[in-house]
C-alpha cells in the first residue's frame, strides 16, 4: 500500500554547517520523486532523515497519515537501497532477503540459532518467510542465486539482491540512495529501466537520490532540486527544463549547461548588452542574468535583419565537438568574452562553412521567447518583451 510522505520545516545542523535549511516537501502516494543536486547539497541527509537513520534538529516527518518523527527506522514502513548495497556478507542471498521479515515476525528468542527452531509457531513462520523470499527473488530474476554469498555476485546481481531485500517488506515507501552510481554505463541504463518497471509494478512511493540529472529526468514523476540545503524547485522534469525558477536549477538541468550572460540594467525596464538595449517588463536590480540553452541558438548570416523579438549574439569561434548528428560549438561572446556553447546540427555547420564566410566570427540568433531572465539573486523574472537597437552613446541626442 503506497504511502505519501510529507516533510515540514526540516532543519539539520552538522557542527557549524547548516546542512538542511527549513526544508518542506510533499510527496504523493505512488509518486516517483527524485532528489537531485550536486555533491554535498544535503539530499542524502534528507533521505536518511526520512528513513529515520539520522535524527534531525527540528521539523516533522509524516509517512502516510502518521507522524513518524519520533519513530525508529523499523517502524516507519520504509525500505532502503544503499549506494553500496549493504548486503550482509556472511549471509546467503536468501538469508539477506529474509532478514527484514525475520526481524519483523520472529521474536528474539526464535531467532537464536539452533534453539530458536523449537519456539512454537517458528517453523510455520519460517516457511512463510521462505516462500515470500522465493517469490521476490523470482520477480528480480535471482532465484538461481539464493544460496550464493554476496562476494560471489557481480555488481548488477548484488544490486538486485538489495532491491529484493527492500521489496520483500512490501513497504509504503522505497528509498534509494544513488543505487546506480557503482555500475558501469551500460548496466546503468538497463537498471534504470528495471527500477522504472518496479515502480510501475508495485505502485509504491519511490524517493530516489542521485546527482545525475539524466537519471532524475528519465525516471521521475517529479524532481526536487536540492542545493545548499534548500529545495530550490519541485516539478515535473519538463517543468524543470522548460520553466526553471532559479538560475541554479537552470544551469543544473540540461546538458550542456545553459549559457548565462550577466547584463547590467541602468534603468527600470531596460537592459544593456553592450550596444543592444532590451526591454524588461519589470524593474530589476543592477545586474540581471540572461540564460539561453545551446540548442535554441541558431546560426545566422550576419546580414540577416533581426526582428523585434530576436536577439542577435556575435561570437568568436573557438572549437567544435562533433557528437554525431549534432555538434557543440564552443565560442566566446564577441564583446563580453563570456563562454557560449551552441548546439547545432552538423549539416547546418557544414553549410555555414561552405559559404566561406570568415569562420572565426559567428552570429547567433535567439528568439526572445526562449530566453530566461534571472535577477541578481538568481530568481526568475518574467520574460523580456522586445528588443530595439539603440545608437551608440556618442551618436545619441541627449
Amino acid at each position, binding site marked *: 500500500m503506497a504511502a505519501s510522505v510529507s516533510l515540514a520545516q526540516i532543519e539539520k545542523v552538522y557542527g557549524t554547517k547548516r546542512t538542511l535549511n527549513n526544508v518542506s516537501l510533499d510527496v504523493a502516494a505512488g509518486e516517483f520523486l527524485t532528489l537531485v543536486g550536486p555533491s554535498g547539497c544535503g539530499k542524502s541527509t534528507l533521505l536518511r532523515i526520512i528513513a*529515520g537513520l539520522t535524527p534531525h534538529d527540528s521539523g516533522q516527518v509524516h509517512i502516510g497519515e502518521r507522524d513518524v518523527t519520533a519513530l525508529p*527506522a*523499523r517502524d516507519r514502513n520504509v525500505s532502503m537501497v544503499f*549506494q553500496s548495497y*549493504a548486503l550482509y556478507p556472511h549471509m546467503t542471498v536468501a538469508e539477506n532477503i529474509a*532478514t*527484514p521479515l525475520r*526481524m519483523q515476525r520472529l521474536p*528474539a528468542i526464535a531467532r537464536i540459532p539452533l534453539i530458536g527452531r523449537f519456539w512454537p509457531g517458528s517453523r510455520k513462520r519460517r516457511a512463510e518467510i521462505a516462500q515470500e523470499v522465493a517469490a521476490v527473488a523470482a520477480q528480480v530474476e535471482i532465484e538461481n542465486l539464493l544460496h550464493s554469498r554476496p562476494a560471489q555476485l557481480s555488481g548488477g546481481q548484488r544490486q538486485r539482491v538489495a532491491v529484493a531485500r527492500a521489496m520483500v517488506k512490501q513497504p509504503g515507501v522505497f528509498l534509494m540512495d544513488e543505487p546506480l552510481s557503482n555500475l558501469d554505463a551500460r548496466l546503468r541504463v538497463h537498471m534504470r529501466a528495471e527500477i522504472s518497471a518496479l515502480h510501475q509494478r508495485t505502485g509504491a512511493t519511490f524517493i530516489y537520490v542521485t546527482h545525475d540529472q539524466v537519471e532524475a529526468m528519465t525516471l521521475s514523476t517529479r524532481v526536487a532540486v536540492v542545493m545548499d540545503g534548500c529545495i530550490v524547485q519541485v516539478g515535473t522534469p519538463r517543468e524543470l527544463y522548460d520553466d526553471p525558477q532559479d538560475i541554479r536549477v537552470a544551469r543544473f538541468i540540461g546538458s550542456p549547461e545553459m549559457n548565462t550572460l550577466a547584463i547590467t540594467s541602468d534603468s527600470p525596464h531596460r537592459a544593456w548588452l553592450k550596444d543592444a538595449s532590451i526591454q524588461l517588463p519589470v524593474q530589476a536590480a543592477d545586474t540581471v542574468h540572461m540564460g539561453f540553452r545551446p540548442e535554441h541558438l541558431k546560426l545566422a548570416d550576419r546580414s540577416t535583419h533581426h526582428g523585434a523579438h530576436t536577439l542577435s549574439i556575435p561570437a568568436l569561434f573557438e572549437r567544435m565537438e562533433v557528437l554525431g548528428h549534432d555538434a557543440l560549438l564552443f565560442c566566446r561572446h564577441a564583446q563580453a568574452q563570456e563562454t557560449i556553447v551552441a548546439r547545432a546540427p552538423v549539416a547546418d555547420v557544414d553549410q555555414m562553412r561552405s559559404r566561406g564566410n570568415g569562420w572565426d566570427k559567428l552570429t547567433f540568433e535567439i528568439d526572445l521567447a526562449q530566453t530566461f531572465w534571472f535577477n541578481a539573486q538568481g530568481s526568475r523574472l518574467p520574460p523580456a518583451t522586445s528588443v530595439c537597437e539603440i545608437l551608440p552613446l556618442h551618436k545619441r541626442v541627449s
Partner: protein
Amino acid sequence: MNTIATAAITAATATEPTPAKTKYRWPDSLAWWFALPASFLMLTTLILPVVIVALLSFTNYELGMPDTAFVGIDNYLSVLSDPKFWHVLRNTLLYTLFVVPGSVIGGLLLAVLVQSVGKGRRLYQCLFFLPVTATLVAMATVWKYLLHGQIGPVNQLLHSLGFTPIEFFGDPGMVLFSLAVIGVWQLAGFNMVLFIAGLVAIPQDLYDAASVDGADRPLDRFFTVTLPLLGPTMLFVIVTSSLTAFKVFDTVAVLTRGGPQGASEVILYQIYLEGFQYLRTGSAAAMTVLFLACILVLSWLQTRITERKVHYL
C-alpha cells in the same frame, strides 16, 4: 610479548585483501641484494638453530660434558614417559584455558564499549592499553603485593567483606588462576586494540541496513552485523592469545618459580630449567621440539576450526 608484537600489526593487515600488483622481472641478483641481509640472518639465527635443536634432541649432549653420543629417540621417550612433562603440559593448557576466554571476551567487551561512546575514545583506548606496555616483570612484583596472602589489598578487601583471605600464590589450587588473572590483565588491552581495528573496518552502511531491516537494538546489531563481521579478527585474536598464553614465562619465573609444589610449572619454565640450569641440553632440545609441535598444532587446529566459518569476504 614477542608474539604480541607480531600480532597487532598483522591483524590490521591480515584482514585487508591486498590487490594484485604488477611485479617486475628484474635480474634476480638485484632482488636478492635486497633480500640478502635478512636471508643471511634467517639462515644463521633461525633455520640453522632450529635444525640444530632438532639434531640435539637426538643426542645426550650436556653442556660442559666431554662425550656426546647419538641416542636416537631416547630423549623423546624419556620425556614423554615422564609424568612431570604431562603435569607441566597440563598446567600450561589449564593456564591457557583460563587466559584465552578471559582476554578475548574482555578485549571484545572493551572494544565494543569504547567504540560505543562518542567522546573520550582515545583516552579509554590509551588507558586500557597501558598494562600492555608495562614491563611484566615489574608489574608481576606489584601483583605479588596486590595478591599477597596477608598484607595485599585484595585480601584486605575480601576480609572486610567477610571472606577468608586467599593465598593467591601460596595455595597450589589457586596459583594457576592467579597467574591467569595477571595474564588476562596484560592481554585484554591488546586484544581490545585488535578488535577495534576490526570494528572500524565494518562499513557503517551495514548498520544502517540493519536498522531499516529492524535490527536496531544493541543486541540485535551486535549479533546481526558486529559479531559476524568480526569473524576474521576473532580468529586472529583467539590464535594469538592462545599462543601468548601458551608461552607464559615471566610471571612464573619471577613470582612462583614453578611452586608451590610444582603447581605452576609451565612448559617454557621447565625447558629453561632443563636446558640452562640443569644443562641437560639433549633433553631440553627434545622438549623444545615438542613445544614447537604443540604450538604448531594449536595454531593449525584453531585456524581449521574457525576458518571455514570466517572467510566470506
